[in-house]
């Protein structure tokens, strides 16, 4: 098998707080191959975003700290790199878009300026060429009238349009990997579908890989080839998307899938949505054993004694559970 584009091995990103070490990411392994879309799912606070930011080294240090692990980008470890070396990788090779399109654009510059800034910074083009590039990017992300809209300010765009602008900015240097950190969470449903479609289109055009972080299982089913399920700073299940939805092995994954709202069922049977009881445990001093044990219907004695290892249960399908 060829070397993966991004290979995270045993990554531990911890945060030092007054109460002790918060183990936000506690030994995560995941990899992304060229041109594939990997979904990273899990509920709030399970370490998805910290993992994503760790890849681009956007974690504030202190309080954050890489405790262990490697982030191999095309075989090269990013963790020991200095800031200015990281700046060469950011946008040019790995780009990220955030959840909040409303505040992710600088209100005092036109969107054209902001896209052009990225292009200028990395491609050493003149201002004029960069602005032309910015208009071209706006056209690619389906913003009508791009020649005129490059001179508009962010407040003149709607939420969905701003997310398109963010995508245009992120893709302006044709990165090999786009990390999308809950790109559609702040948008309404119809716009969500458009943005996902746009990302799909861009992926095919530029041949890049996408790491899609989300808590919407429906989005994952639609767009991803492989899925990594995270819980409390650990990967609990990893599988091709068909295997994950067809045969979810981890009780947490099963719970997540059952908690997808379904219009047909809700309307017909007035069925209540199933939720997973309880909340994510504190990551301050996680108990030994399986972190999901306290919320798991099938928890046994062994679950609280030692962390189960990831075991392979099918081709490319790994699960961290004794069942």
């Amino acid at each position, binding site marked *: 098998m060829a070397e993966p584009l991004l290979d995270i091995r045993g990554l531990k990103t911890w945060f030092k707080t007054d109460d002790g070490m918060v183990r936000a990411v506690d030994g995560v392994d995941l990899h992304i191959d060229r041109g594939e879309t990997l979904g990273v799912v899990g509920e709030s606070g399970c370490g998805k975003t910290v993992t994503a930011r760790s890849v681009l080294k956007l974690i504030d240090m202190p309080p954050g700290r890489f405790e262990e692990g490697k982030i191999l980008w095309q075989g090269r470890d990013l963790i020991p790199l200095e800031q200015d070396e990281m700046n060469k990788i950011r946008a040019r090779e790995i780009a990220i878009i955030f959840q909040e399109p409303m505040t992710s654009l600088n209100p005092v510059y036109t969107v054209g300026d902001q896209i052009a800034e990225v292009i200028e*910074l990395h491609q050493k083009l003149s201002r004029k060429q960069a602005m032309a590039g910015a208009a071209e990017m706006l056209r690619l992300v389906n913003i009508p009238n791009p020649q005129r809209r490059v001179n508009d300010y962010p407040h003149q765009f709607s939420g969905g349009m701003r997310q398109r602008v963010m995508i245009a900015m992120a893709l302006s240097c044709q990165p090999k990997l786009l990390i999308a950190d809950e790109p559609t969470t702040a948008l309404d449903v119809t716009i969500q579908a458009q943005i996902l479609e746009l990302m799909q289109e861009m992926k095919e055009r530029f041949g890049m890989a996408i790491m899609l972080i989300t808590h919407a299982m429906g989005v994952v089913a639609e767009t991803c080839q492989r899925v990594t399920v995270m819980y409390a700073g650990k990967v609990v299940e990893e599988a091709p998307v068909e295997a994950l939805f067809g045969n979810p092995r981890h009780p947490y994954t099963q719970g997540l899938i059952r908690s997808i709202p379904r219009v047909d069922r809700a309307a017909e049977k007035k069925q209540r949505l199933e939720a997973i009881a309880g909340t994510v445990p504190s990551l301050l001093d996680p108990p030994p054993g399986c972190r999901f044990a306290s919320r798991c219907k099938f928890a046994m004695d062994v679950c609280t004694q030692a962390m189960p290892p990831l075991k392979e249960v099918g081709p490319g399908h790994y699960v961290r559970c004794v069942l």
Partner: protein
Amino acid sequence: MALFSGIALALIVGAVLLGPLLWPVPINEIDFTAKLQGPSWKHPLGTDDLGQDLLARLIYGGRISIAVGVAAMIVAIVVGVLVGAIAGMASGRVDAALMWVTDLFLSLPQLPLLLLVIYLFRDSVKGVLGVEGGAFVLIVAVIGGTRWMSAARLVRAQFLSLREKEFVEAARALGASRVRQVVQHILPNALGPVIVVATIDIAAAIIAESTLSFLGLGFPSDVPTWGSVLRDAKDYLDIAPHWALFPGALIFITVLAINFIGDGLRDALDPRRVL
């Protein structure tokens, strides 16, 4: 109000800049036959005890007073923005130390400090830069150096909230260096309130310069500024009230106009205002 003030200020500044062309009377032409006269056609604002034309002296004095005000404001804002920006970005110990210095300056009584500094350094600075230039640099430095604290606090507070904004993080994620993040993305967003403070600082600096001149610690006494004309007039208040009235009124109107403009800017730049 701000518009009206803007017009008043523009008139004063225009008069001060173009005045010498329209009223080409020398400022130090002594004429004892015409001393302490009230307003007349020959001397629209009257004369002082040496028969010098007050209009000419006030026009010239206005140049110095306003130049000092603007220059001192620039010094205060540059120092304040630098200190505030460094404190806001660095956080931790550097921040604490800089804010400690800021508090220290805030708690110093300003006037005695001004007097002391000018008394101590006047002669040495004069030696290097000449009488007038020396006085100008010293006064600007002293006034600016004791007025940067409000700008520093303001900029620090803005930086603390702005540097956590998503667009700054987005810039960082797309490979912007630290300097670029600050200069391109944080500073322009922090400038609104700074501009307001800057306007009001000009007014305060004009007052401070007038005070210094009034106390005889500003420019040498043969150079007229609004404050020094006022000082010279104080001994003749009973027989020549016009002499004190005009410079006093000019200081009053200028400072008031600048303050109203500052208020107007604050309202105009207030994000909560509904457009």
